[in-house]
């Protein structure tokens, strides 16, 4: 019994449909990634290029892609002549305070919702109520919040901003952390408690290290939200002592002209801290730490 050699030759040369399809799929994915990259990176790049241009170059047609005579005039205007350093410090203080407060409170609440028993359907109702506070447009709360802060004598303070932002972040943080905790096997904490730890100790030493990727992702979200926020800051703050970066930047669109150079410089500078933060924490974003905890 022998197979004719011609047949095996033909089999070897025949195109393998599976592989072709795989290549096409890879190409398609690459194309989508390139498009998404251009779409998101181009505005930032344009901001960076413009921040080094003079006012004349900025409006040149065709657009100037390579700045031949870069100027630092815009940066000088922004950070030396105007109070952008103060705005930036304000933003930073508010954002960090918001992130820390949201994470501490949200983590504890999320843990409670993931682990503790509540009578009847209380857990469902409580979870839903927390989520429902995000269902209305934030602008609806501006007047009550303004009156609230006026009563507490907190208008035009960074504290007021941090409180307001924390309030808006919390539902998100609680739901995110609740999900992360629910994924961590209960056995681990119970084991820690039988080993001699308290519940709080088990939370800090066992559960939180495992929930770290979730906390980092949530922290980035909180930070970006309060860093970008304009509406509340505009209503609640008034002077340089509490104004944040978005207000400073928006303020360069004046009645008579738009200071594109300053906006570009400040806008690009505003991106930098967030990008640095994201790079610093991204190694904590790896998932899968909890694999191998229980039977594999």
């Amino acid at each position: 019994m022998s197979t004719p050699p011609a047949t095996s030759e033909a089999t070897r040369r025949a195109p393998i449909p599976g592989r072709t399809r795989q290549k096409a799929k890879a190409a398609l994915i690459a194309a989508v990634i390139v498009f998404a990259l251009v779409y998101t990176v181009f505005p930032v790049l344009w901001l960076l290029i413009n921040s080094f241009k003079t006012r004349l170059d900025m409006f040149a047609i065709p657009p100037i892609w390579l700045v031949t005579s870069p100027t630092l005039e815009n940066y000088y205007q922004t950070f030396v002549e105007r109070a952008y350093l103060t705005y930036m410090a304000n933003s930073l203080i508010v954002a960090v305070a918001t992130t820390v407060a949201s994470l501490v409170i949200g983590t504890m609440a999320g843990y409670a919702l993931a682990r503790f028993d509540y009578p009847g359907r209380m857990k469902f109702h409580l979870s839903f109520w927390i989520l429902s506070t995000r269902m209305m447009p934030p602008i609806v709360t501006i007047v009550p919040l303004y009156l609230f802060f006026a009563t507490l004598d907190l208008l035009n303070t960074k504290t007021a901003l941090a409180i307001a932002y924390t309030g808006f972040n919390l539902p998100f943080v609680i739901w995110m952390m609740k999900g992360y905790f629910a994924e961590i096997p209960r056995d681990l904490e119970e084991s820690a408690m039988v080993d001699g730890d308290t519940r709080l100790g088990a939370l800090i030493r066992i559960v939180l290290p495992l929930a770290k990727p979730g906390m980092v992702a949530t922290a980035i979200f909180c930070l970006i939200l309060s860093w970008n926020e304009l509406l509340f800051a505009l209503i609640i703050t008034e002077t340089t002592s509490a104004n944040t970066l978005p207000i400073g930047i928006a303020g360069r669109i004046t009645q008579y002209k738009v200071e594109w150079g300053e906006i570009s410089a400040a806008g690009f500078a505003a991106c930098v801290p967030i990008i640095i933060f994201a790079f610093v924490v991204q190694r904590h974003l790896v998932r899968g730490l909890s694999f191998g905890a229980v039977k594999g």
Partner: protein
Amino acid sequence: MAGVTFKNVTKRFGPVVAVDNLDLEIEDKEFFVLLGPSGCGKTTTMRMIAGLDSITEGEVYIGDRLVNDLLPKYRDVAMVFQSYALYPHMTVYENIEYPLKIRKRPVDERRQEVMRAAEKVQLADLLDRMPRQLSGGQRQRVALARVLVRKPTVFLMDEPLSNLDAKLRVQMRAELKRLQHDLAVTMVYVTHDQIEAMTLATRVAVLNEGVLQQLATPKGIYNDPANLFVAGFIGSPSMNLITGALENGGFTGPGVKLPGIGGGDRSGVIIGMRPEDLAVVEDAADGHMTAPIYSVELTGESTLVTVRLGGETIVVRADKDFDRPIDSEVHIRVDPAKTYLFDARSEQRIRV
């Protein structure tokens, strides 16, 4: 070292009764096995000892200390979880060290204790590994080492062998038994595997639907089952059960007539016979039942012969040389002294 006592303990989860009015005395230095099918309340019983589940009614004592409202950390018990519950972000060394670290013991002492526990379970080479880099058997040993570094009054084990493959399970079983012997500790062991229960236990508590069915030595539950549930649950293959009646000093059922069984005349009786107490005989006059062979399985040390009798199947453990074709008729002999009678309605044992 101390025993554990349950006094009228009931545990409810909402409307579900997980453990119903349990009275139990686990003695000091005993290898005590809680045995039952899944959902029978055995794990809940153990978790109440550990303090992981609250007690709805009744009292639990460790030694002579009432522990109902004591946090797990004050109960001085150690537990091996079915999933092992290794801390995934810690190395093997840190995992074993954890109970000592929590107790703020000095670093030198911790190192010594960890090394000693690791050597006892042959883990000394793996101390720098992470749990995810270990095989199932190695993880199991880490979990064991983590309870060994402590000197608790009671060891709790929740189906510790169920995630291991068959060969390793048999090996670890022997090691666990040796370990308990060496340490001379009170061990409470939960399993649904009756072989584990038989091989390991000093005493076995058989639970079903939250109710204690029988508390006895392995020999006791095997040779003297208290009711139909225990009789059917213990033994592999399980006990043959035939429904019939007692008449004229014998048992009569579909296709069976067994003389020499007392207890007076009554209907609604189930007779139980273990496969190993039945024998295949050559002569029809020696046998009590005659039935066609349904299937023949060689297990190595013996042959399991299944026959069809009326609507029931009866399993006989025959000699390993047994060799008859399927569908041929065989005669089966029953030893009346090795049969068990149960009331079909109450499922309780009828003792004669």
